[in-house]
């Protein structure tokens, strides 16, 4: 917005993260690679949520596009015998973006609680449809074909590493593009939309169109995330669209705040650690630990994790 008074380190950070994954990935245990891959996938979805949050919109149904991404990846394998994870992520992004392009005409008309609940209703409709769809495995879901990259199937001990490096490459590229978008006039419109839609319209911009664009970008990111998660887990089921899954993404987005495009990934890693640890220590009350964590974040870090790293770190 104003001339940058600090150096924007977002792209170097993204590059460093990718490099770290490539270099240190082989040293990490498989379970850690798996957790990080899932964190990447959820981080992508939460990045999409962040785009909407910046404009003052909370989607309680982002799992809709996470699920579409996952089922696109699954369907490519089941019906077309396509196991290339890059292709799965690209198709997941396009399928989700296409659905969002259509639903966006409806969603972009609503604000506040109506936007949130309508988005949740749409995701629950998909959940219901998938739960009744026998060709897609009904409530049991379907398995994903073993991943390949550019037609090559990695050896069993390298699968997790290849998946995370491929996923991280795509995530870094997508995040860099979002970062670039946020620096365009349309991207910078988000806080203005949150503050005063009337003024935005009287400056000559279409609020509805700006929200529609953000909604489609968020869906594409979620589609990539869903396809990546499906590849990593090797299985998809309708729970990917369930409202509690959307709740996880909101948890991560609140944890991350809206100041940086890197924050959702950090938030997703921390969420993964809290979730895994809480479940390990107390399988019956892990939700309580998550709830207390969220409470602490809201009370002590109202602007999310990134507020720890300085007041004015821009996206």
């Amino acid at each position, binding site marked *: 917005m*104003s001339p940058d008074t600090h150096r924007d380190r977002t792209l170097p950070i993204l590059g460093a993260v990718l490099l770290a994954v490539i270099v240190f990935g082989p040293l990490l245990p498989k379970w850690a690679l798996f957790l990080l891959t899932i964190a990447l996938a959820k981080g992508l979805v939460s990045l999409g949520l962040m785009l909407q949050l910046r404009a003052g919109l909370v989607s309680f149904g982002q799992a809709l596009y996470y699920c579409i991404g996952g089922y696109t990846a699954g369907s490519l394998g089941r019906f077309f015998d396509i196991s290339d994870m890059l292709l799965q992520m690209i198709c997941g992004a396009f399928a989700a973006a296409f659905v969002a392009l259509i639903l966006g005409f409806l969603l972009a008309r609503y604000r506040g609680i109506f936007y949130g609940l309508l988005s949740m209703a749409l995701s629950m409709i998909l959940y219901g449809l998938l739960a009744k769809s026998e060709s897609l495995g009904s409530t049991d879901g379907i398995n994903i074909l073993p991943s390949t990259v550019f037609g090559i199937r990695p050896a069993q001990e390298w699968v997790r590493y290849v998946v995370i490096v491929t996923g991280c490459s795509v995530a870094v590229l997508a995040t860099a593009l979002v970062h670039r978008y946020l620096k*365009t*006039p349309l991207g910078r419109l988000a806080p203005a939309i949150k503050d*005063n839609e*009337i003024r935005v319209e009287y*400056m000559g*911009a279409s609020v509805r169109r700006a929200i529609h664009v953000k909604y489609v970008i968020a869906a594409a990111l979620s589609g990539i995330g869903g396809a990546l998660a499906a590849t990593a887990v090797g299985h998809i089921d309708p729970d990917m669209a369930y409202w509690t899954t959307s709740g996880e993404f909101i948890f991560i987005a609140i944890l991350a705040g809206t100041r940086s495009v890197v924050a959702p990934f950090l938030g997703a890693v921390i969420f993964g650690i809290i979730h895994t640890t809480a479940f390990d220590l107390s399988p019956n009350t892990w939700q309580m630990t998550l709830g207390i964590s969220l409470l602490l974040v809201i009370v002590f870090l109202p602007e999310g994790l990134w507020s720890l790293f300085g007041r004015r770190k821009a996206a």
Partner: protein
Amino acid sequence: MAVVLDARDLNKHFGAVTAAMNVSAAIEQDSVVGLIGTNGAGKTTFINMITGYIKPDTGSIVFNGRDITALAPRDITRIGICRSFQIPQLYASLTVFENMMVGLGVVLHNAGLGGFFSRGRPNVPGYDAPAQEVAERILERFGLSDYRDKNAQVLPGGVRKLLDIALTMAAKPSILLLDEPTSGVSAEEKFGMMEMVMAAVKAEGATVLFVEHDMEVVSRFAQRVLAFYDGRIIADAAPEIALADPEVKRYVVGGELHRMDEEQGKANA
């Protein structure tokens, strides 16, 4: 001078309430027009119809030969008709400079500049300078440079008004509609503020319509006055003529005094 904006027979009803009745006015280029009238007389309705916020039931609005009656507010802004508000409409969480940059960003975006693949610092259409320089220049003209990095929500009332008007300048308007630019500003500051606003607006060459309740301000700054009463224009003339009009004196200028006289008369009776 050439007519730049032509409102023809505008009518607007809200249920049983008549907000505009056969309102017609041809606004000449580079003129400064004062809109006067008591509350509810139809001044803001007139501005709202011109800027597309509400649509007239009948009648048309023509801008530079183009019928703009059905256009949305953003489209009307894009063709060069901008407005300020009685209650300033700002981006409260952003600084004064950021407020300006959002506006200039929209102008760049609408001009096909500053998009995803753009590089460098494109010039803002109409200003021939990059957005940062234009923002600084406009802020300076409106005396807002000292508030540059302050959040809009902590600004004093008069400064908020000025920023609201400064924001309209981002789109380099050819017609500017100011809705009560001095309301909420102390009597001592009104003239200084209007001097500054008019100087800044005229420096960019815009036709101005402003709603005002202070007749001294109207006399001093308007070249022409449109007096509204009960949804109609009851006088359309130079200030010295319009303000001396018996109807205007009765219903607009002296409305308050007239009512007080009537009340006094009843009390004495």
